[in-house]
């Protein structure tokens, strides 16, 4: 692990500003600690805006080192669940315990549509953002960070792209860059919001390999997905959502035709009628 201690002249000059954001030191760093922080407990969680919450009444636990796919019809609250765990969507009720988030050992990848893909930034700088804790708001980005960036870019299949502006990248290449940023973040918990939406087949396979590697390394991974075949093939755990939790557990147990039909009915407002008949 690289140290979060800034070096050089700027350390003294900028020290009085550290209360702003001088980067932050991750609290725990040994590989063995991941079991302690990487679990996520949800207790009767409702979240969203207004009187119709996007998700409601969700309880359960993402075990440390688990690999879970979140699935469900459009508007089922999959992204909202991820945002609630990431702390960017306010909870209306219940609580979420995520020690990794408190320890800043936590990574969240938003949907591509939430990013400004025309922003004037190079692939190198985008990936380097993953090491924010090393430089914070205003410190110089050190060469050790750029070494890790080059390594991550190579792992994500973007070796020759570092100097390119982000604006010229295809959807797949942009997604590879976001995954490289996750590699640099090196977090115990990783949340992925629709990582394969509109991404070509080859890129999807490469990125799935990265997810497999993270899984072997004992990180907790939660991903919102649409492709059920892919979920059955790669994800041991699944969580089926339709505003509330329809089923959560082993993928084979969750992804039954009956459960999927129930999720569809709930979303179309037919849940009650079906239950009554």
């Amino acid at each position, binding site marked *: 692990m690289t140290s979060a201690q800034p070096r050089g002249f700027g350390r003294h000059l*900028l020290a009085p*500003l550290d209360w*702003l*954001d001088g980067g*932050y030191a991750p609290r725990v760093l040994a590989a063995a600690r991941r079991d302690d922080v990487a679990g996520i407990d949800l207790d009767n969680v409702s979240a969203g805006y207004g009187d119709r919450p996007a998700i409601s009444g969700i309880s359960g636990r993402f075990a440390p080192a688990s690999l879970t796919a979140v699935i469900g019809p459009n508007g089922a609250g999959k992204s909202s669940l991820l*945002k609630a765990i*990431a*702390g*960017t969507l306010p909870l209306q009720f219940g609580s979420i315990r995520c020690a990794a988030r408190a320890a*800043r050992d*936590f*990574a*969240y*990848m*938003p949907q591509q549509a*939430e*990013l*400004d893909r025309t*922003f*004037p*930034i*190079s692939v190198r700088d985008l990936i380097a*953002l993953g090491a*924010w*804790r090393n430089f*914070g*708001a*205003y410190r110089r980005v050190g060469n050790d960070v750029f070494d890790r960036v080059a390594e991550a870019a190579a792992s994500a299949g973007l070796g020759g792209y570092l100097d*390119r*502006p982000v*604006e*010229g990248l295809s959807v797949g290449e942009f997604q590879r860059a976001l995954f490289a*940023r996750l590699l640099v*973040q090196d977090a115990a918990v990783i949340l992925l919001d629709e990582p394969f939406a509109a991404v070509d087949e080859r890129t999807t396979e490469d990125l799935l390999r990265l997810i497999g590697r993270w899984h072997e390394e004992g990180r907790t991974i939660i991903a919102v997905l649409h492709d059920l075949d892919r979920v059955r093939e790669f994800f041991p755990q699944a969580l089926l959502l339709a505003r509330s939790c329809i089923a959560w557990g082993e993928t084979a147990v969750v992804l039954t035709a009956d459960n999927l039909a129930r999720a569809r009915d709930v979303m179309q407002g037919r849940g009650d009628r079906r239950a009554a008949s």
Partner: protein
Amino acid sequence: MNSVYSLGGLYHLLIGPFATYGFMRTALVACFALALANGPIGTLLLLRRMSLEGDVLSHAVMPGAALGFLYAGYYSLEALSVGGLLTGALVAGSAGLIGRLQPKRKETNLAAFYLLSLASGIIIVSIRGSNVDLAHVLFGTVLAVDMRDLVFIAAVSSATLLVLAVILRPLAVESFDPAFLRSIGAGGGLFRAIFLIAVVLNLVASFQAFGTLLAIGPMLLPAAAALCWTERIWPTIALNVAIGMAADYAGLLTSYYANLPSGPAIVLAGGIIFGLSLIIGGRFRRDERRTVEEGRA
């Protein structure tokens, strides 16, 4: 000897007005100082998709400046600036508050602020002033900038550059990927508030030169032109400053020879550069990208 003669002629044409007249020099230096601060401010306004907010804030300066005018007359820099700063900050704060209460009607709320500020400002000026005063408040008087104004402008510009040098990164990253920044617990309201204050301060500093209607022009137009050419944030800011200064120079010179109002001439020069950049720069970048993609295929 002919070439020396024509060089001398060129000197008289391009440098002469500034060498001869102190007010032209002061105006040029004031505009250059504003262009320096407008480099990062304008670029960030565009990247954060806040051009409408900027427009509203420039009008929000008006009622306060008008109250200052009512209180102390047109030539009291302090009264105009303090008044403008107060109403600017007031509108920035309440726009943020209302935006949080009603996030879906943002443009409507901003348009209402814009109109209310403009209307109340005009009424306040009209209570005591003439049409000439009104024109001064609305369009500014670059050529009337004196040494005291210049010091104020330079101080605001320097402070802006120093502060933005420290918080440029979170402000830029937030406009690129806000969810990421929030998820790592960085960025946040403090930086946004500092940025808004910097915008209002610079609008107040620009007010004397360009008036409330045009102050946002030298902030946004060079930035928009620069974004047509560059793909990195630092080159964008540097080019933004250069284009801003070029527009200042061209506008002042044109207004001198053609006897036109200076502020509008400068804004117009910026607009022409933006138009050319859109046509030439946009095409240049598209072509470049196409060759990159063809090379990859």
